[in-house]
């Protein structure tokens, strides 16, 4: 089992500074790793898929498109949902960004069961376990989600799969999204942009139809896309503040600002033609007690825009995983 990873462990051991790298689809997140870091990628491929147990193990360098196709053959899926399906599975874990189906299927971290990775002191370790329920030892897989490569080189991950729902359809509605959220039972997603509300419904056809009837002028629509643009960010605010944050976004003079709100979650995806507009949105987020992460562009702005909480605790943990600060040095500052 370990021999598959020997070359990876060797390259980590042979390098002074390492920047774990996938497809670079999320490389705009966080600060840049220090110059001189050697980019090392994880191997790719599906290790095992056990459809009867709804569990899949994949090498971290596998592209999400390939991963989804492989488990899709058995009519199963894992809701990773990165912006680009060219992202690698390891990259998705390290960037920690959940997709728009989070309301229905939970955040990325709740779908991850076990991880194998190489530590800064050059050991290949296993954390978590391969079953859907497990409290054997500390829950370290969750610590790796969103760690931006700073804790080690992720080489393999085990996820819980879900059966593909018999139906999964997007609708637009003139209902107000906050009200829709209160009215509906387990919608998969409720999104809105400046023009419309979008609802993703999954399940039995009759339930999808029933839920749709709860909404005003419910009409089927194409898949909803995240806003695109040279400058992109992701806002996080308390779900209760979304309506007021949206009003403030509408009130800005930034006509180039586009957004997509995840109701019930508190995430707002933003894109703009100028980084000034992203800065305006960030001010609104911070004012609401939240923050805005830069996902791409906006190089004149700080990647986080807020002091990262509990930095002292983080650095103690960082030293436990990576005593010589070999991995992704400087990503969090």
């Amino acid at each position: 089992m370990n021999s598959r990873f020997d070359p990876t462990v060797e390259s980590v051991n042979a390098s002074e500074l390492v920047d774990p790298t996938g497809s670079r689809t999320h490389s705009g997140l966080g600060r840049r790793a220090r110059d001189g870091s050697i980019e090392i990628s994880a191997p790719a491929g599906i290790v095992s898929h056990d459809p009867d147990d709804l569990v899949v193990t994949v090498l971290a360098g596998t592209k999400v498109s390939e991963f989804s196709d492989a488990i899709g053959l058995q009519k199963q899926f894992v809701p990773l949902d990165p912006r680009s399906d060219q992202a690698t599975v390891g990259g998705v874990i390290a960037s920690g960004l959940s997709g728009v189906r989070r309301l229905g299927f939970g955040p990325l971290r709740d779908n991850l069961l076990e991880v194998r990775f190489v530590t800064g002191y050059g050991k290949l370790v296993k954390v978590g376990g391969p079953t859907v329920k497990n409290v054997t030892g500390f829950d370290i897989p969750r610590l790796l989600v969103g760690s931006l490569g700073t804790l080690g080189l992720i080489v393999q991950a085990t996820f819980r799969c879900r059966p593909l729902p018999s139906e999964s359809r997007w609708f637009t509605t003139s209902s107000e999204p906050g009200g829709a959220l209160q009215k509906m039972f387990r919608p998969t997603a409720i999104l809105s942009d400046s023009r419309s509300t979008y609802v993703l419904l999954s399940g039995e056809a009759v339930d999808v139809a029933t839920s749709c009837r709860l909404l005003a002028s419910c009409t089927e629509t194409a898949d909803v896309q995240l806003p695109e643009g040279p400058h992109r960010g992701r806002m996080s605010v308390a779900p209760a503040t979304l309506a007021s944050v949206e009003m403030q976004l509408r009130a800005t003079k930034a006509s180039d600002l586009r957004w997509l709100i995840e109701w019930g979650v508190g995430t707002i995806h933003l894109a703009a033609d100028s980084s000034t507009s992203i800065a305006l949105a960030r001010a609104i987020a911070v004012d609401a007690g939240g923050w805005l992460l830069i996902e791409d562009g906006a190089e004149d702005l700080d990647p986080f825009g807020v002091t990262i909480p509990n930095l002292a605790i983080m650095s103690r943990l960082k030293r436990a995983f990576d005593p010589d600060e070999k991995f992704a040095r400087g990503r969090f500052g």
Partner: protein
Amino acid sequence: MLAPRFNTRESERARAEPLELSLYSRDAGLANGQAGAVCFPRDASDVAFAVATCKKLGVPFVARGSGTGLAGGATPLDDALVIVTTQMNRVISIDAASRTAWVEPGLLNLDLTRAAQPYGLHYAPDPSSQQACSIGGNVATNAGGPHCLSSGSTTAHVLAVEAVLPNGEVAMLGSTAPDQPGFDLRGIFVGSEGMLGIATKVLVKLVPNPPQIQTMLLDFMSIDEAAATVSAIIAAGIMPAALEMMDSRITAAVEDFVGAGYPRDAAAVLLVEVDGLSGGVDHQASLITEIGRAHGAREVRLARSESERQLLWKGRKSAFGAIARIAPDYYLHDAVVPRSKLVGVLRTIYEIADSHDLTMMNVFHAGDGNLHPLIVFDRRVIGVWERVQAAGTEILERCLAAGGVLSGEHGIGLEKRAMMAQFFSEADLELQARVADALDPHGLANPGKVLPAGFRCGEVGINRTLPEGTWI
């Protein structure tokens, strides 16, 4: 001795009455420990002061909620100070629109659901001990329960934790807004069994009550058929809200105890619940019925009313009360195996019990492969305890060999720390010890738990007691 604080309350003094020390020297597991003193903080600052005092004096401390844990996680060793959170039991606030609540760690699990009920919401994790167990304890063990099959264990329902870290600092881990930048410290804290700090405030997710619920009882003439039905339901892509299995011995015992209407002569019963919108509920219920019948179910009974449904669940939740009528002692195990391996694993663990001449029963969360083999015995019988332990170890080894894990919801605590090396390599355990050492360099937070001996720094030489009357 430390000088008293201003505004001190009597509850802040360490107590060492023999009765209290004895009461708090163990949890609901079988191991006895040794408490040096006990205290009952009323807020985070009391907890922080107690922890800081321990740090100053080099005394270990153990957090404890209701003490319902079965793995010895709250059992004090080496005269540790037991920090009991039962007086911190308030629901601080409920935000019905956001479906969240801030609660204190000593709040009982069922009281949280009761508080959410007026809003049509509930707290999803429902351990069998939910009437007695506390949210703080649930966080420490990442507790589960029957309904965690579809909705996930405690960690999926905790958004933020205010905790007193082993160095006495108070930190907020996680946030109301999603995905705080930086490491998911909330994630590593949940399930850390009191070794990374003590929760003083928890932000939990509440979920809406489902519009429709169908509870079903399937009975079988063989355990193999029941187990194969479970595997087939999961393999068919059905995700019930709960999928519980009870074998003949426990079914009969429960029936004698509460009269839930269970078939006394069945070899095994499955209690299955599906919930959601009516189309999905009906569809899943009919598929489950079909799968059950195809695997030899003798009867598939659908609860026709809420009271019938409550009665079926009362049977399941009374299982441990019913056992007391059979033998004075029981040892309840907790392990998880892949759902596809249930038939073979169950067969083997009955054989293991037989080979040690022990009576075993099974009542467990079959849907997620979470086994709870339960050995009943009378500890007054000479030599029986050794046989119980030997059988338990063999059962766990069999579960690991089938691709399973050591614990699904009870935790490792004292009970299974020695077996950790059978699941994890030395390098894996070294990393876990490094994590604990990073946050608790002096090894005072619930020492001697989870990790096998020899992995932590500074784990030797703890031998100080906090004197009674110390202001903490």
